[in-house]
């Protein structure tokens, strides 16, 4: 491993730890709020009645925040590693060779899930405003968001992991 790759992996570790830390802060603070942060309680409540399924929107809110932070944190690192091309094309190639390794490809799958969910859920929130959607319609859209995220993630992951499987 070259020195540049070592520096990149160090920065990448910092990004991952920051995302994990942010997720912990969101979920721990959510414990102060109605149902938030208690996975078992939330699942039981969602199974109880149609009205309780609004809990899914709460978890979408937490997931939206965590995925948004994760995408932003990685983007900051990615801007730096892409701009290495301006410094030296060979340095750029050296660092970017890491993206082809199996662990980084697994990370890219997780990034794809985050981007798909964050984008589609953002469009859902826009649709709630534009089309004046109530609770039931919003939850139906959330079901669509989850389904599309799974489909896109599975299809994308097959492409991303293809070369190493």
């Amino acid at each position, binding site marked *: 491993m070259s020195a540049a790759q070592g520096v990149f992996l160090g920065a990448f570790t910092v990004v991952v730890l920051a995302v994990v830390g942010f997720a912990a802060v969101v979920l721990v603070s959510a414990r102060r*709020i109605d149902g938030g942060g208690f996975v078992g309680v*939330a699942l039981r*409540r969602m199974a109880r009645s149609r009205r*309780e399924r609004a809990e899914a929107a709460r978890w979408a809110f937490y997931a939206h925040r965590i995925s948004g932070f994760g995408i932003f944190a990685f983007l900051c690192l990615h801007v730096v590693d892409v701009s290495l091309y301006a410094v030296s094309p060979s340095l750029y190639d050296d660092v970017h060779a890491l993206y082809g390794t199996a662990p980084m490809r697994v990370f890219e799958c997780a990034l794809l899930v985050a981007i798909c969910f964050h984008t589609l859920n953002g469009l859902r929130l826009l649709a*709630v*405003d534009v089309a004046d959607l*109530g609770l039931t319609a*919003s939850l139906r859209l959330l079901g669509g968001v989850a389904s599309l995220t799974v489909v896109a993630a599975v299809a994308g992951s097959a492409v991303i992991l293809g070369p190493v499987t």
Partner: protein
Amino acid sequence: MMVLDLLLAIQREHDACIGFRFSCRVAMCGTCTLRLDGRSVLACQTPVPQDRDTVRLDPVAGLPVLRDLVVDTAPFWREWAKVTPYLVPHDGLTEPAVVTPDSDERRLIDASLDCIGCAACYSSCAVAAGSRDFVGPAALNRAMVLVADSRDAAAEQRLAVADGAGGVDRCHYVYGCSAVCPKGLDPAAAIRYLRKSRLKS
């Protein structure tokens, strides 16, 4: 047996010092709000679940706990006061205002009028109860009722609050408010109405 009956039984037979609030017992005063297994409910109207041996009771979320299940509701009422929660009549009127029962205005307002200020919506809002700067669903629902009222003259100042830093833009459509309201109101719909109203104004 309601949750309030359970609390009274605990107070009588096990712990005379347990602190909780109640008053009317008919879902009108809004004082007995608490969280049952995480869900914000009125203790006087919620049956104790029969399908298990233990239940979890917590005080209302997002408000300072004074003792046991008793919270300080002052922050909730401070937000409520921000929207000028009373009718401000137009000056110089000599005739009584007429709002017919079948008018769109009446239909819009009626569905949001029965708020009892129980703070269940505030407690279940991931933004308001998260101690972030947000006026909250109850206050915005009240603002909508008055903004939609043709007799009211203070719509602009209410919309200024709704459009401000802690206003409707803080809502992330978690829908906790509409899901838990014990009176069946839909504060999220009121927030959507206010978002559109400020564009019109």
